[in-house]
C-alpha cells in the first residue's frame, strides 16, 4: 500500500483514511528497517489490523455512512413529494428539475464530510457542478418550451386576413428585389462588355447575386408571411429544446468527469483478484469495478462466447459437422450424405470463432486489470460518459474496419484456409464425398517427375515461366518502343497514333481474345491469310508450338497498349532541358536514350511492370478463351491438361473438370506462395510501405 494516492496524470494526493494511512506508514517503515525493529513493527501492524473496528477514524467513517444512509432515504421521500409539486409535463424538464433539487440537498449534506473521505468529496463536488450549472439549462429549456408552445398556438389561431395581406405585401416587395437583381445583373453585363471585368468574374458575381437574391426573398417571406414566420420559429425552438440542451448537458457531463479525474479513490479492500476471477466471464469484472454500462457491452461478448462460439465449436447448431472436432474426423463414420468438405469448412469456422473468443477474453482481462490496478493507485474507474467518448475516439478505427474484417475473414480467409488444408487430403474422383487426411502425398506427387501428375506439373510449370517471361517482355518492348517513337518531336499526328495504340487496352480483353480465337481457327480469316502468304496449310490450334507462338504474339498485341500508355505519360513529363543539356555536352542520340530516357521510365514504371509479370503468370482468360489450354498432348500431359495450359488453368481443369481438388489445392498453394514472395520483394521498397513508420 502506498502512502499517497495518484490521479491519471500523476498528481499526488494525501490519504484521508487515517487508518489506511497508519497502515501504509508502518508498511513503509518495515520496508526501510532491518533486524529486531522489523518484528516489533510487524507486531504493531497486526495489532492495528486486529483493532480495526475500534480505530477512531473507522468509527467516524461508520457514523458518516449511517448518516448518509439516512440522508439518502430522506432524500428519496423528498424527491417523491417534490415531483408532485412539479407542473411541467416535459419528461426531460422534470428529470432536470429533480436532479437540480437533489444536488442542492447533496451539497448541504456532504459539505461537512469533505475532509473525512474522498467519496464524500467526490459527491460534494459533483453536486456543486450540477447545482451551479443546471439552473441555466433548466431556464433555457423552459423559456424555449414556452416559446415553442406559444408559436404552435399562434400557428393554429392564424388570422387568415393577416395571412393574405402578408402574402400580398410579400409578392409586391419580391418584385422590388427582382427588379434590383436584374438591374445589378445588367450593370455587370455592361461592365463585361466594356471590358472592365472578365467572363470568369462575371460568372462569380452572378453566383453571388443569385444567392443574395434568394437570401433576401427568404428573409422577406419569413418576416411578412405569419405562417412562414411561425413555422421557422417552431423549427428553431424545437432545435433549442432538444439538441441544444443535449450539448449543454454534455458540458455538465464533461465537468463531472473532470471532477472524477481529479478526485482520487481510496479503497480498503483487496481487489487484486478481480482480473483473474473475471477472466472467463467478460462483464463480471466491470461489474465489480462499478462500471455497469460497460458491463453490458462486455456481457454481449460473454453471450457471443458461451451461446454462439462455444456451442458451435462443440458441434451444436452446425450445418452438418461436429464443430472443431470435424477438422480431424472429416466426416469419418458420419452418415452417407454428409460431406467431408463441409466438415472441414465448419471445423475451420469453429477454429476462427474460438480465436475471436480468445481475443474477447484477452481484451476483457486487460480492461479489468488496468482498471483494478489504477483503482489501487487512486485513479477512479471511468464513468459511462467517458467510456463512450473513449470508444468513439480510440476505438474508432476498430469500429469502422470491423465489418470489412469480418467479411474478409469469412469470404477470403476461410476459403483460403480450406484450400491449404485440402492440399493435405486425398480428395480425388474416388473420394469426392468422403476423403481423409493424406499428409504430403500431393506435394510429393508433384515433385516426382515420372508420375503422371508430376510430369504434367513440371511441363506446365516450364511453359508457365516461358510464357510469363516472353509474353510480358515482348509487350513491354513493343509498348515502350512505340512510346519512344511516337514521342519523337518530328512525328506528325501524335494524337491519332496514341488514340489507336491504346485501343487494345480499352477494348475488354475477353472480346479481343475470343475474336482472335475465331480468326485463328482452321477456317478463320487470319489462318487463311497466313496460308496464302506462306503457302503452307497451317492448323494453328492443333499445333502446340504454333499455338504457343500465337498466344505470345497476341499478348504482345494486348499488353503493349498498357505499357505504351504508362511510358508515354512518363516520357511526356521528362523535361526537354535534360536533353538539351546532354546535346550541348555532345551526347549522341543513343547515349541520350540509354542514360536519360531509359532510367527515368524504368524507375517510374518498374512496380507496374512487375505487376504485368504477375498478371500474365495468372492470365487465365487468354489461355482458356483462346484455345482452352489445348491442343491436347496425352503423352506429356495425360488427359488432365493441354500443352498451352499454365498453372492457373491447370488448377481450373484439375478442380472443375477432373475432380482432383486435392492436387489442385496443392498447386494453388504453390502458386500463392510464389506470388507472395515475388510481390513482397516488390513491395518491400514501395513508397506506401516505407512511409509508414
Amino acid at each position, binding site marked *: 500500500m502506498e502512502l499517497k494516492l495518484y490521479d491519471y496524470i500523476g498528481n499526488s494526493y494525501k490519504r484521508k483514511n487515517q487508518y489506511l494511512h497508519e497502515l501504509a506508514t508502518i508498511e513503509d517503515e518495515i520496508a526501510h528497517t532491518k533486524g529486531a525493529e522489523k518484528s516489533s513493527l510487524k507486531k504493531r501492524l497486526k495489532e492495528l489490523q486486529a483493532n480495526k473496528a475500534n480505530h477512531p477514524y473507522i468509527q467516524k467513517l461508520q457514523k458518516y455512512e449511517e448518516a448518509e444512509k439516512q440522508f439518502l432515504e430522506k432524500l428519496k421521500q423528498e424527491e417523491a413529494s417534490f415531483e408532485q409539486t412539479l407542473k411541467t409535463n416535459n419528461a426531460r424538464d422534470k428529470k432536470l428539475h429533480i436532479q437540480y433539487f437533489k444536488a442542492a440537498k447533496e451539497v448541504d449534506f456532504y459539505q461537512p464530510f469533505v475532509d473525512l473521505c474522498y467519496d464524500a468529496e467526490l459527491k460534494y463536488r459533483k453536486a456543486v457542478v450540477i447545482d451551479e450549472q443546471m439552473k441555466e439549462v433548466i431556464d433555457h429549456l423552459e423559456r424555449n418550451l414556452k416559446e415553442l408552445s406559444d408559436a404552435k398556438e399562434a400557428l393554429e389561431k392564424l388570422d387568415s386576413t393577416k395571412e393574405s395581406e402578408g402574402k400580398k405585401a410579400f409578392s409586391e416587395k419580391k418584385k422590388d428585389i427582382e427588379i434590383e437583381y436584374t438591374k445589378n445583373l445588367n450593370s455587370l453585363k455592361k461592365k463585361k462588355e466594356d471590358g472592365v471585368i472578365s467572363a470568369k468574374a462575371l460568372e462569380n458575381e452572378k453566383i453571388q447575386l443569385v444567392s443574395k437574391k434568394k437570401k433576401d426573398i427568404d428573409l422577406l417571406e419569413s418576416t411578412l408571411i405569419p405562417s412562414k414566420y411561425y413555422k421557422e420559429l417552431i423549427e428553431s425552438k424545437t432545435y433549442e429544446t432538444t439538441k441544444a440542451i443535449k450539448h449543454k448537458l454534455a458540458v455538465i457531463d464533461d465537468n463531472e468527469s473532470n471532477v472524477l479525474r481529479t478526485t482520487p479513490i481510496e479503497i480498503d479492500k483487496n481487489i487484486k483478484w478481480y482480473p483473474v476471477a473475471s477472466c472467463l466471464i467478460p462483464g463480471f469484472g466491470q461489474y465489480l469495478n462499478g462500471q455497469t454500462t460497460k458491463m453490458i457491452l462486455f456481457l454481449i461478448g460473454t453471450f457471443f462466447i458461451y451461446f454462439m462460439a462455444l456451442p458451435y465449436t462443440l458441434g451444436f447448431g452446425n450445418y452438418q459437422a461436429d464443430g472443431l472436432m470435424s477438422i480431424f474426423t472429416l466426416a469419418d463414420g458420419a452418415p452417407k450424405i454428409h460431406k467431408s468438405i463441409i466438415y472441414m469448412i465448419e471445423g475451420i469456422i469453429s477454429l476462427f470463432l474460438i480465436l475471436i473468443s480468445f481475443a474477447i477474453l484477452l481484451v476483457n482481462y486487460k480492461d479489468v486489470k488496468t482498471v483494478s490496478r489504477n483503482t489501487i493507485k487512486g485513479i477512479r474507474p471511468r464513468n459511462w460518459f467517458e467510456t463512450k467518448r473513449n470508444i468513439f475516439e480510440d476505438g474508432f*478505427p476498430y469500429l469502422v*474496419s470491423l465489418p470489412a474484417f469480418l467479411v474478409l475473414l469469412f469470404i477470403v480467409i*476461410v476459403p483460403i484456409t480450406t*484450400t491449404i488444408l485440402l492440399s493435405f487430403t486425398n480428395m480425388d474422383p474416388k473420394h469426392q464425398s468422403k476423403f481423409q487426411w493424406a499428409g504430403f502425398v500431393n506435394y510429393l506427387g508433384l515433385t516426382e517427375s515420372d508420375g503422371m501428375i508430376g510430369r504434367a506439373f513440371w511441363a506446365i510449370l516450364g511453359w508457365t515461366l516461358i510464357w510469363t517471361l516472353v509474353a510480358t517482355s515482348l509487350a513491354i518492348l513493343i509498348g515502350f518502343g512505340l512510346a519512344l517513337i511516337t514521342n519523337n518531336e518530328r512525328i506528325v499526328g501524335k494524337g491519332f497514333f496514341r488514340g489507336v495504340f491504346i485501343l487494345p*487496352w480499352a477494348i475488354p480483353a475477353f472480346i479481343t481474345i*475470343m475474336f482472335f480465337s475465331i480468326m485463328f481457327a482452321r477456317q478463320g480469316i487470319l489462318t*487463311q491469310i497466313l496460308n496464302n502468304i506462306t503457302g503452307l496449310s497451317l492448323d494453328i490450334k492443333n499445333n502446340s508450338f504454333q499455338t504457343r507462338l500465337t498466344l505470345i504474339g497476341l499478348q504482345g498485341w494486348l499488353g503493349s497498349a498498357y505499357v505504351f500508355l504508362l511510358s508515354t505519360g512518363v516520357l511526356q513529363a521528362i523535361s526537354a532541358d535534360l536533353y538539351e543539356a546532354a546535346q550541348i555536352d555532345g551526347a549522341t542520340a543513343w547515349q541520350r536514350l540509354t542514360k536519360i530516357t531509359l532510367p527515368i521510365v524504368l524507375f517510374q514504371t518498374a512496380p507496374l511492370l512487375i505487376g504485368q509479370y504477375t498478371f500474365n503468370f495468372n492470365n487465365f482468360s487468354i489461355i482458356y478463351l483462346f484455345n482452352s489450354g489445348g491442343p491436347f498432348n496425352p503423352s506429356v500431359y495425360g488427359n488432365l491438361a493441354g500443352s498451352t495450359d499454365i498453372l*492457373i488453368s491447370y488448377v*481450373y481443369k484439375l478442380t472443375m473438370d477432373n475432380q482432383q481438388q486435392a492436387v489442385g489445392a496443392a498447386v494453388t498453394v504453390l502458386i500463392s506462395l510464389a506470388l507472395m514472395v515475388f510481390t*513482397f520483394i516488390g513491395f518491400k521498397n514501395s513508397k506506401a510501405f516505407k512511409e509508414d513508420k
Partner: protein
Amino acid sequence: MKKKSNNLYLGDRQPLNTMGKIGLGLSYMVLILWTIAILWPIYQMVMSAFNGMQQEYIIMNKGFEFSFDHFTFLFEETLYPKWMLNTIFISISTAIITLLFVSFTGFAYSRYRFKGRKASLMAIMIIQTIPSFAGLTAYFTMYSIISDVLPFFNRQMMLILIYSAGGIAGNTFILKGYLDSISMELDDAAKIDGCSNLKVYKLIILPIARPMLAIIALWSFLGPFMDYLLPKVILTNPEAYTLAAGLFTLIADKENMNQPAFAAGGLLIAIPTVILFTVLQKQLISGLSSGAVK
C-alpha cells in the same frame, strides 16, 4: 532568287541529315504498320458484325451485305439482354459494397495509429497477393450451405460477395496511399472546431477522396465486367451468366455457335468501354500508380 529560298532553312530544330531522314521514314513505317495491326482485327470484327452474308462461322471472301441480322439474332434468339442486366447488377453491387468497406478502412489506416495496425496492414498485403480463385472449392460448399440456410441467396450474390471481399485488401491500400498524400492539417483543424471522427470522415475525407473513390468504384465495376473465370465457375445457369461467360457460349458451344452474333455482341460492349477508357485514361492509370505501388 527562287533557287536560293529553297536552300534557306527555317525552324528551331536542326536540319535532318540523310540518316535522320531514313530514321524518320522508318519510324513512320513502324507506326503505320502497328496502326494496321491494331485496326485490321477491329475492322474485321465490325465488318463481321454487320455482314448479313456471314453465317454461323466467320469465314473470308464471302462478300459483304450490310444488315442488322446478327444484332436482331443476338437480342431475340440469345440471352444477351439478360447477360447484360446480370453483368450490370453484379458490377454495380460490387462497386457499391467495395466502396462502403474500403472508404472506411482506407480512412482508418491512413489517419489513425492504433494497436495492431502494422500487423494487420501486413496481413492485408499478403492477402491481396493471393488470387481469388484460391478458394474455388470452398466457394461451392459455402454457397450450398448459405443457400440452404437462406433460400433467397443465389449464385450471383455469392459472386458479388467474392468480388467485393476480394477487392477490400487491394483497394484499402490504394485509398490509404492516396489519403496519406493529403495533409492531416485539415483533419486537425476540423477536430479542433469540434468535429467528431465520423464528421471528419463525412465532411473532410469523403469530399477530398472523391476522385480516388470514383476510380476505385470504376475499377470495382470493371473487374466483374471483364472477368471470365469466376462467373464461369460459380454461375451454372446460362440465365445467370455475365457477358463474358455468356458470349463465350456463342463461340464454344456446338449448339449455340454463332460467331457473327458474338462479334455484334462484343462490338456493343466495346464501344462504351473504349469511350470510357479513352476519356478517363489518365485517371484510370493514376488509380493504379498511386498507393499500392511506386
